[in-house]
């Protein structure tokens, strides 16, 4: 399981990386915005994308849309971990095809639950 973590704050990337490691996912890579993440996704064989929303360069929602528009990446599971908690933003992310949405600040349990749920759905297929 290869996972890409995208957030402009390195502290948050470290936190998510730590929690994923706790869940047994050790093969993680990092990017600090959508612009650097997209080529990594297109070049690499990632199985899961965890992304923030509010980032300079290219935002998480634009990255999500770009992923869904890319034939090779369109099925990639995407979890959004973000401070954006407005109703219309969540609706927009859902419309764009997000697989899970976790609002910051979050608990380790909440993140774990969302990730497990996404994988359960994928396996149920």
């Amino acid at each position, binding site marked *: 399981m290869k996972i890409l973590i995208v957030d402009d*704050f390195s502290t948050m990337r470290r936190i998510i990386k730590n929690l994923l490691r706790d869940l047994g996912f050790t093969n993680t890579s990092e990017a600090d915005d959508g612009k650097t993440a997209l080529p990594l996704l297109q070049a690499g064989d990632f199985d899961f994308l965890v992304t923030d929303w509010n980032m300079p360069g290219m935002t998480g929602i634009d990255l999500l849309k770009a992923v869904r528009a890319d034939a090779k990446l369109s099925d990639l599971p995407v979890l959004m971990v973000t401070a954006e908690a*407005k109703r219309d933003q969540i609706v927009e992310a859902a419309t764009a095809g997000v697989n899970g949405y*976790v*609002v910051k600040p979050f608990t380790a349990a*909440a993140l774990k639950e969302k990730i497990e749920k996404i994988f359960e759905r994928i396996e149920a297929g």
Partner: protein
Amino acid sequence: MDLDSQPFDSLLKEKAQLLLDNLDQGIVSTAVQELLDINDARNDNLYTQIGKITRGLHDAIGNLEFATGDETDAERDVQARVAYVIDLTRDAANKTMDLAEESTPIAAELGSASTALRGDWEKLANRELSAKEFRELYRRIDDFLLYAEDKSNQLHSNLTDIVVTQGYQDLSGQVLQKIVNMLNATESDLVSLLEMAANMQTPDQNAEVEPQKLLTENHKDILAEGPLPDSAATLKSQAEVDDLLSNLGF
């Protein structure tokens, strides 16, 4: 020729030439008229400049929101954001210290329990224990293994919570970035106002300044979202977000 659209300096040159020509030819009444035209054009130009500065001032005041009362929305907004950062950092520091304070005695207990067992364990290795003492040691080691497993889970959980708590850096960073953007936009408004006032002394050079455009551009950054304390449109918890998503069929 349309006097309104002609730049003041070219009009001045043209009229000055006509004035001299008329004076040379002794047509004094026409010369006086040229002089009056120059004066009118100068006044018009002045009014245009004053109008521009007034509009710029009005826009800047609107953007700075200095216009009403002692405390404006913008100031209250900044205060709310700073208060949010203070709360966020204080809560994170307290939570981290609580977890560390809770973990320290656990680590100490694990250490002292190990030390106590190690004494008898050495006796066992040296065959200094009676059968009764050995059964007692066996029971204590059994208890200790359960205890160590439980306490190490607790330490692990506390350390994970400490890691997650550091997320305050991301949230406070986003809020502070927004405040910095607001201050930069305010500074730009004041600078553009100052430039317009300075250009007042040399009319017409200021013709290209478009304060409205300048102000709008400067304020683009503020529109970015982020953690918003007490915003009506913001969902308050992960549970509310989950409800919304499940209503949307997720």
